[in-house]
Structure formats: structure tokens, C-alpha cells
């Protein structure tokens, strides 16, 4: 294809997206569109899969059967969300094995938030309330993104996600209505998860390299800073309701803007975690890689069994 022909196709392609048409896997697409989508969708899938680990830590120690069943269901949903997203990503012509390889080698990223430890039961509450809350804010606009398989996966994810946040908030509420120690535990969890949750919505607009192109492709409908402000504005009243204090002395309602002003985010910490130096980066990756490697013989055995069965069926038929 000549350069002129490609340029023409690109113009038609951009016009389709501008008209709100969806792009499906077999449609022609610019190479950059394909690559950007593989990066973002796989990063999203990896986050769901790694996101199971901090919560998996508490399944056996949940304080009641009700809490345990809910936490199990939530973690199972996250596995499901990872699978929807991996499938969507594979339609772009990359294999599941390649995707895992990118995660395990550190080439692909996942959400920085999952590199923090879950040291008390209250962390299950804070994660559901804050981390899933921030994730929902990020994900809802993606239900309308331009790539069909991604948009469809996100519709399913968003439908399931709201239970996650509600169960987290309920855990916090129960702790806050409990003993002094329980309330202190909830406050401690908020203290530790608040800032990482704000960071999770991504670098400031000035630092974000992908925003403009992503806006055009509807991979992003609002900038990181807008999403962060939305998250803060909706979460502060919820903290008030719990009777907890947000660990930010500069947090203050601004009558003029109708939003909360907030303190400086420690971006050095964010970049440290993204680059692999967070408290649990190594632990998370080890858990993933071990699960994959130790499961290899099971995957091979299942495949061998399926092939043997198939041969037997063919032999019987002939």
C-alpha cells in the first residue's frame, strides 16, 4: 500500500470514530491504534488478575461466612474481568501467552495500587470503597470507547463492579459503628489507601503522554485530573458519613468551584511503585509467575487428554 493510500484509509478511519462508529477486530486500523489498544487493554486485564492477590490474602481470614462468600465472589469477578479483557485484547492479533509473557517479564504494566500490602481486614473495606470506586470512575466512560470488543467487555465489567464498591463501603461502615479499635482500624486503612487511590487515576495531565491521542480514539473521555477531582468530590462526603478523616490537611471545599481543593500528591512515590520499587511489586510478580509455571503440567495434561479423546472419537467413527 502506498503512503497516500494509507493516509486516505487513516482519514476514513478517524472520521468513522468521530461519527461514533465502532471499530471491530477485522476492520482496517492504523498500526498505532492496534498497538495502543493492546497496551491499554492488556494493562487493564493484568490489573484485574494481579488485583486478586491483595484480596486473596484475606479470604481464609474473613470475619464471617457472609464476608467470606462476598470476598470470594468479588475475587472471582476479578478473574472473570481479566478473562473478558484478555479475550478482547486477543482479537487484536496477540496471543494469551504473549500477553502473560509481557506481564511476567515486566514489559507490561498493571495498576500501581496492587503493589501495596493488605495488612488488616479493614484493607478489604478500603480497597472496595476506594480502589474499586476509583476504578469505576475510570471504567464507566470506557463503555463507549471506539473499539467494539473493549467497549462490550467494559459494559459487563461495570455492571458487576458496583457490588464490589458497595461491599467495601459496608465493611467500613460496620467497622466505624463498632468498637474504638475497629474504628481506628478503618481510619488506619483509609490513611494508607487514600493517596495511592488518588495516584491510581494516573499522572497529572501535564505529565500524561497518551492523553490527546487517547481522547480522539475515545480510549479516554476525561483527563486524569478531571477523573481525580470527580473521585475526590464524591468520596469526601462518604468519608464524612463514616466519621473518618481524610489524611490530607489541605483538603478544603472550594465554594467557587463547588469542588474540593486538595494537597500535593507525592508523585515520586507513584513513579517508584510504577518502576517496580513499591512495597509488594516483587511479591506480586513472584506469585503470578509461580502460579503460571506450576500450572504448566496441568495445562499440558488437559491438552493431551483432549487430543487423546479426540483421536478415540475419530477411531470409533471410522
Amino acid at each position, binding site marked *: 500500500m502506498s503512503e497516500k493510500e494509507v493516509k486516505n484509509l487513516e482519514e476514513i478511519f478517524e472520521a468513522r470514530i468521530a461519527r461514533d462508529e465502532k471499530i471491530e477486530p477485522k476492520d*482496517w486500523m492504523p498500526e498505532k491504534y492496534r498497538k495502543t489498544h493492546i497496551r491499554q487493554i492488556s494493562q487493564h486485564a493484568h490489573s484485574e488478575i494481579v488485583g486478586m492477590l491483595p484480596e486473596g490474602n484475606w479470604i481464609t481470614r474473613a470475619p464471617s461466612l457472609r464476608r467470606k462468600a462476598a470476598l470470594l*465472589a468479588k475475587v472471582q469477578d476479578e478473574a472473570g474481568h481479566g*478473562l473478558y479483557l484478555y479475550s478482547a485484547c*486477543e482479537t487484536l492479533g496477540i496471543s494469551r501467552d504473549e500477553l502473560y509473557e509481557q506481564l511476567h517479564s515486566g514489559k507490561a504494566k498493571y495498576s500501581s495500587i496492587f503493589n501495596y500490602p493488605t495488612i488488616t481486614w479493614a484493607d478489604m473495606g478500603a480497597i472496595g470503597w476506594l480502589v474499586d470506586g476509583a476504578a469505576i470512575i475510570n471504567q464507566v466512560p470506557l463503555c463507549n470507547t471506539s473499539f467494539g470488543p473493549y467497549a462490550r467487555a467494559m459494559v459487563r465489567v461495570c455492571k*458487576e463492579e458496583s457490588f464490589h464498591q458497595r461491599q467495601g463501603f459496608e465493611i467500613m461502615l460496620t467497622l466505624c459503628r463498632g468498637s474504638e479499635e475497629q474504628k481506628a482500624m478503618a481510619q488506619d486503612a483509609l490513611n494508607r489507601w487514600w493517596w495511592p487511590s488518588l495516584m491510581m487515576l494516573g499522572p497529572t495531565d501535564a505529565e500524561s503522554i497518551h492523553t490527546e491521542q487517547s481522547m480522539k480514539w475515545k480510549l479516554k473521555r476525561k483527563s486524569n485530573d478531571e477523573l481525580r477531582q470527580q473521585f475526590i468530590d464524591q468520596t469526601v462526603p462518604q468519608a464524612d458519613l463514616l466519621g473518618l478523616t481524610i489524611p490530607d490537611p489541605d483538603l478544603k471545599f472550594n465554594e467557587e468551584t463547588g469542588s474540593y481543593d486538595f494537597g500535593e500528591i507525592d508523585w515520586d512515590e507513584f513513579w517508584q511503585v510504577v518502576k517496580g520499587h513499591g512495597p509488594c511489586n516483587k511479591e506480586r510478580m513472584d506469585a503470578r509467575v509461580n502460579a503460571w509455571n506450576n500450572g504448566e503440567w496441568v495445562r*499440558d495434561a488437559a*491438552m493431551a*487428554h483432549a487430543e487423546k479423546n479426540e483421536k478415540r472419537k475419530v477411531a470409533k467413527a471410522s
Partner: protein
Amino acid sequence: MKKNWPLWEIFVRSKNGLEHRHFGSLHAADAEMAMENARDVYTRRNEGVSIWVVESKNITASNPADNGEMFEPAQDKVYRHPTFYDLPDEVKHM
């Protein structure tokens, strides 16, 4: 010798009276495992009463590059639509 689990397309009937609809895909070693996984991945909240699993390689799909010759001819056949025919207003029930 490394062989990856093949890809399966999952179709779910959400309730009797409705058709099976494409829900997504997943990897499984064989049809039986695809069925079990489809149940766990796509019907955790009563989304279905029946599941079909089809190995993806068995699906023949049209190519979007051929959409012109495939679908455009239908566009100028307006006489296939009831609104093409002029009838007096007095004619009822038609």
C-alpha cells in the same frame, strides 16, 4: 512440545424464547472444559439458561473489506420495504 488451549466462542440464551447471543470467548482444552468455563465466566449472575460453545476456528466470517459488494446492493432495493408502495389513506389494516 508446547500446545496452547484453543479459543472457543461462547453463545448464551438468556431466557427461553430468546436466541443464543454471542457473549465472548475463552480458552479451553476441549468442549467439555469450554462449557464448564463458560458457565463460570459468563453466567455468574443468572445471565443464561443455555450455552453453546463453538471452537473459534470453525467459524467462517465475512471480510469487512468486502462489505461493499456484500451489503451495498441491498441499499437500492427500496421496493423490498412496505413504505415503497403508495396506497390511498382510506385503505385500512395494510
